[in-house]
């Protein structure tokens, strides 16, 4: 008997019981949709985290001081933050594995252009910072070493700032006021999206640290952080230790807890571990529903065999072979699960898209998650269809025919 004929027979049998077929299928549909959506969410989260980590730069090590937090005495205004501009120079000079190093002075300020106001964080940095964090320019240029040396009143702004202050014109070479200090905009950097912590990385003003320290912070000495980029990924762990040792040497009063020397890889690894665990967890919950769907198929097929004993007898009487009956029931089960699987993929894709829209995430449905669910639903059909099919095929013809 040709295979297409068995397909035809199986299809007709399924169509004869549309409601039952659909309800059985629903188990698989929900299962597959859940797996697809969960994997898509996991994948999406991973992509976001990866993007955010990449937006931090390449092979970046951040050096921060904890002294502010640790000791009330040291947190007085004007006291040492623990890290100095000298440290930046020293780190740069001492270690060959350092490619770039820059200080980071964080501040904030109100920006004013004509009648428009905007309130933004301000980062005072060295020119190296551009390369450490991979800033690409949308318009204009980054400020120069000369600007840093002379403490020139120039700034680079993010796209959020640009669109809010300059809705209809180019911000390049415009004079604006930052904390009432007139500054000139020399560049707008390309959008970097959200940070790992969820902040808008484009709502930012980048300025020479010398200008920030001289003009913006006034008497209050801000906390200094140091950003370092290593020559290669492999050098990062050694460089971390070297920097920590240097800091302990130069600050004899300090202990290891006073400084935080973090690498981007640490953050990436942690984030990846978290998102992988999450994906696995979500996918295993979804798999359970797929398994339940499979058992549903077996249940229905078993009921269906008992219900159709006479039909099987009639089929055999007119020439169906045992293997034809076996195939018919397996194909019925596979059709339910495969069609359910395909509908599940569509539903899953729809759900993922909806979530993407609602959560403003870039959710990606990977090819392998589709391949996986199709293979899995086929396997479920064969696995859970086999036993009822075997039962149907091994019926005694006479008994089946006379069954009432």
């Amino acid at each position, binding site marked *: 008997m040709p295979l297409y*004929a068995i397909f035809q027979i199986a299809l007709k049998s399924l169509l004869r019981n549309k409601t039952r077929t659909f309800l059985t299928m629903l188990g698989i549909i929900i299962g597959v949709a859940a797996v697809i959506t969960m994997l898509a969410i996991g994948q999406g989260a991973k992509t976001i985290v990866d993007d955010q980590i990449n937006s931090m730069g390449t092979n970046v090590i951040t050096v921060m001081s904890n002294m502010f937090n640790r000791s009330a005495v040291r947190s007085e205004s004007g006291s040492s933050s623990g890290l100095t501009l000298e440290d930046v120079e020293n780190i740069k000079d001492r270690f060959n594995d350092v490619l770039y190093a820059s200080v980071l002075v964080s501040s904030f300020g109100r920006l004013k252009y004509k009648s428009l106001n905007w309130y933004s964080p301000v980062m005072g940095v060295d020119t190296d910072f551009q390369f450490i964090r991979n800033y690409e320019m949308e318009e204009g240029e980054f400020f120069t070493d000369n600007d840093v040396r002379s403490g020139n009143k120039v700034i680079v702004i993010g796209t959020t700032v640009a669109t809010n202050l300059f809705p209809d014109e180019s911000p390049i070479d415009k004079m604006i006021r930052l904390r009432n200090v007139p500054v000139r905009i020399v560049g707008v950097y390309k959008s970097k999206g959200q940070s790992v912590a969820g902040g808008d990385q484009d709502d930012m003003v980048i300025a020479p640290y010398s200008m920030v320290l001289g003009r913006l912070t006034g008497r209050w000495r801000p906390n200094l952080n140091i950003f370092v980029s290593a020559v290669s990924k492999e050098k990062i762990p050694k460089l971390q230790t070297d920097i920590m040792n240097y800091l302990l040497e130069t600050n004899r009063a300090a202990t290891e807890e006073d400084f935080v020397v973090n690498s981007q890889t640490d953050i990436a690894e942690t984030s990846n571990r978290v998102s992988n665990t999450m994906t696995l967890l979500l996918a295993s919950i979804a798999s359970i529903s797929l398994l339940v769907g499979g058992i549903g198929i077996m249940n229905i097929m078993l009921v269906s065999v008992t219900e159709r004993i006479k039909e099987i007898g*009639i089929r*055999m009487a*007119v*020439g169906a072979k045992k293997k034809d009956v076996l195939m018919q029931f397996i194909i019925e089960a596979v059709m339910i699960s495969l069609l359910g699987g395909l509908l599940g993929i569509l539903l899953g894709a729809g759900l993922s898209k909806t979530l993407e829209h609602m959560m403003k995430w870039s959710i990606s449905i990977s090819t392998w998650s589709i391949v996986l669910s199709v293979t899995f639903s086929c396997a479920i059909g064969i696995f859970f269809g086999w036993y009822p099919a075997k039962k149907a095929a091994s019926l005694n013809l006479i008994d089946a025919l006379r069954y009432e």
Partner: protein
Amino acid sequence: MPNTLIKIENMSKTYQMGESVVHALRNVDLTINKGEFVAIMGASGSGKTTLMNLIGCLDKPSAGSYILDGIDIHSLNDNELSDIRNEKIGFVFQSFYLLPRTTAFENVELPLLYSTNLNLHQRREKVLQALETVKIAERSHHFPNQLSGGQQQRVAIARAIVNQALIMLADEPTGNLDSRTSVEVLSVFQELHRNGITVILVTHEKEIAMYAKRLIIFKDGRIISDQINNNQRNAAEDLKNLPKEEED
């Protein structure tokens, strides 16, 4: 004998029913030629249905030999028996045995689906031809529950002949039908017989058997009588004499 279609020698069939052994058939010898119209009669339990199951290759004998159209059935496996049933034998049962929720057309198509590679068009041709033969073509898209008993039996007959069966095996085909419809069905059998199909009719009603050419009577698993029916009735003639009824 080139004309021999069925040659049964010394055939026995026993069933195990709990402790006791039931002898359904005891050493039966039977030869049926091509083109015969045989009625097998007997009370229930006489072994006539068992014989029909064996002739139809639905069951295997406990002992004895069976040659069907020159093929030794004993040597065949399950798959080959399925092919024999599919290609050489058409069944008609007392309660029709049509697939529910399946149109007349699809019911008749069923044996063809399990058969050789006919394409859609060829299958359609054959099905419509079979339905035409039993004069039910206009109901081809009705479901069994939309058809009267007589119509259902016609569909079943169409299913039996769709694959050019050599033998038509009918097990109490009129058991569920009123007398007029019974005669109608018998007239279909007689017409098929005229067209060269061997018809074997199992019945316990003497009047029904009288439409056959040869009468075989069973009792306790043995043939007790086997004779030519000299008073064969003509169903088409009888139909004219029966009072007309409106088809529903």
